[in-house]
């Protein structure tokens, strides 16, 4: 095909790096402000009573009260929707509130979810202990047990939930196959893609229906601001069966509105906002939305560096005498290596789990002695972060749950930052020296 012909057939819609900087925002509608303004306000003037009624009745778009929506937050929502290839998005005050809102938009008391067992500890507790208080029960399945997801589906199952790459063990769920299982059962697949960001993976292209992010992590990227988001793919047909009456039947809270009929590919987001933000209120502050937008502007630049540093660290750790094992999808003998190549073509992410020789004591000594790497309960900062999950992020799990989630006491979770790689390695050498002599060097 000649260049001229290609020019005709190629859509000129903006690509990822451009959308990262521009999507969701029109300066000419904001006093020409090149930067997205921070609308630090609780509420918005109505033109008249008719305008107010129109906004409350969802007759027209606009903002009423910042718990429901805010212009700065809306830019972030649209930007993430565009990057994910989704139809709509709803930002929340944290990743956990995004998961809770997604579940409460989908489920009612008496419903059931099938959930991957390898999740962030807080998410495990939400599904294991908190949701049952709302009458929503969950069955946990190991992420690599694809058939297990199918077997766990019950008559009242309303969805499947998982992290594409499980926290902290780095086990992948076979998203395309699990999506097929979900769709055969007439239920959606919800994926927490925090570890990937849309730069590494767009779950909608692999069958996911709802994508959730803790924007606090790589998307914001600088460890400054809490934020979460749920994004809708728009393909799931809520009207294909009678499993989702709150999506398809007239809703008393909005004059008998059927979200699925009225809003189709954006129905889930519209319901999450109209009902969930109204009734639960986990709204994102405009300042934090703006901070996340600054991070997203450099997402692809940072993710490349995160991933290249991570691959360097994988090589370094794999050859280190103090390291018992390394888990990262880039390692050729990682059980999910081939799947990761398919789902994560731009890089396998910057989360590494490794086992330190000497077990828990060595792990404690290592963490207490590294100086550059920060010991804290976060991931996806520009800075390198380390934690010992069994005593930190996942410490509220009992022994059996830890084992089922694939955690061991020698495991250290490493979120590789974008510092100079030599400086990270030098810092780790200090930690490993201390780990070999924990009693002499530990500062505990």
């Amino acid at each position, binding site marked *: 095909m000649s260049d001229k012909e290609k020019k005709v057939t190629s859509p000129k*819609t903006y690509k990822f790096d451009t959308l990262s900087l521009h999507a969701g925002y029109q300066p000419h509608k904001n006093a020409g402000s090149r930067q997205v303004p921070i609308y630090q306000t609780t509420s918005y003037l109505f033109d008249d009573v008719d305008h107010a009624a129109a906004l409350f009745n969802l007759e027209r778009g606009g903002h009423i009260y910042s718990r429901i929506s805010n212009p700065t937050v809306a830019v972030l929502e*649209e930007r993430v929707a565009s990057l994910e290839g989704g139809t709509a998005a709803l930002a929340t005050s944290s990743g956990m509130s995004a998961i809770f809102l997604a579940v409460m938009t989908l489920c009612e008391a008496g419903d059931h979810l099938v959930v991957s067992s390898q999740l962030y500890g807080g998410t495990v507790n939400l599904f294991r202990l908190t949701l049952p208080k709302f009458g929503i029960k969950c069955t946990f399945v190991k992420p690599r047990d694809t058939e297990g997801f199918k077997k766990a589906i019950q008559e009242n199952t309303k969805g499947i939930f998982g992290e594409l790459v499980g926290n902290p063990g780095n086990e992948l769920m076979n998203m395309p196959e699990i999506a097929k299982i979900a769709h055969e059962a007439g239920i959606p697949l919800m994926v927490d893609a925090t570890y990937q960001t849309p730069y590494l993976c767009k779950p909608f292209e692999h069958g996911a229906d709802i994508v959730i992010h803790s924007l606090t992590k790589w998307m914001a990227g600088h460890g400054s601001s809490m934020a979460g988001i749920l994004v809708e793919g728009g393909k799931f047909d809520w009207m294909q069966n009678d499993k989702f009456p709150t999506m398809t039947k007239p809703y008393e809270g909005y004059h008998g509105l059927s979200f699925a009929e009225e809003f189709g590919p954006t129905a889930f*987001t519209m319901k999450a906002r109209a009902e969930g933000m109204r009734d639960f209120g986990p709204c994102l502050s405009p300042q934090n939305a703006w901070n996340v937008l600054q991070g997203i502007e450099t997402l692809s630049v940072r993710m490349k560096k995160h991933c290249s540093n991570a691959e360097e660290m994988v090589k370094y750790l794999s050859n280190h005498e103090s390291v018992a094992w390394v888990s990262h999808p880039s390692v050729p003998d990682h059980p999910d290596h081939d799947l990761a190549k398919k789902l994560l073509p731009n890089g396998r992410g910057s989360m590494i789990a490794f086992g330190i020789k000497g077990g828990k004591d060595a792990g404690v000594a290592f963490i207490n002695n590294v100086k550059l790497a920060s010991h804290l309960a976060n991931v996806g900062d520009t800075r390198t972060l380390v934690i010992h999950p069994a005593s930190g992020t996942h410490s509220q799990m009992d022994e059996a749950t830890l084992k089922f989630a694939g955690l061991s006491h020698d495991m250290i979770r490493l979120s590789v930052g974008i510092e100079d790689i030599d400086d990270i390695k030098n810092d780790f050498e200090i930690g490993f020296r201390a780990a070999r002599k924990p009693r002499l060097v530990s500062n505990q």
Partner: protein
Amino acid sequence: MKFKVDNHDVYASTGGRPFDKNKPLIIFVHGSGLTHMTWVLQTRYFAFHGYTCLALDMPGHGLSEGESLKSIEDMADWISRVIDAVDYKEASLVGHSQGCLVTIECSARYPEKIKTLSLMGGAGAIPMNPELLELAENNDPKAVDLMMDWAHGPAGHFGGHPVPGLYHINTGGMLAKSRTIKDTLGVDFRACDNYKNGFEAAKKIKIPTLSILATGDKMCPVKEGRKLADLIEGSRVDIIDNCGHMMLLEEADRVLKVLKEFIVTNYPST
């Protein structure tokens, strides 16, 4: 709501209010390959302000049964049968893009039934780019991607949806891909390309008519829209700057304001 036309279920959004035969009827007709959902920022207003609205899914589109109709003339006749099916004598028509061709033809054929005509992104003829037509008829999703590119103006490409959190281009693309592309978009594009009677039909229209055009519309440029409007007696034209073919989403508030003034004046609700 659902009702039967030609023994097939037809789906139409009523804008969130119950269908009420005591109120004047406004029928909204979507563009090629799309569905009733393109009208969500217009229908709900009228439904809450004294009108009965039907934002239709054309046969074979969205939630409506049957096969897509193959000509604009067939679609125009079908609209007339919709009015009969819901037991009305008359209606006001609102069309977008291909929906303009359909409503022009319908207004010319059934002058006793159609009371006002509102055209958005309309022209007297919509000849299709041959490559786009071929892609759509071959079920190639690139047809939808190209349509979304060309249908949105420069500002629309950045987003800025009036409903917080919604992203125009992906939402439109998902609507157009919700059924088999060749059976919806492919058939619709061919129907548009084949339709040659728009200018003749326009000359017959004697009802109040509004044309909303946009300076960034690549699919039905202002020049073409004006050519059509000039043939309709007393036609009113409103031009939106810095906006593309999807003006009903890109500039939803402006479109609603103009449409509201026009319909309330010319087709008042009692």
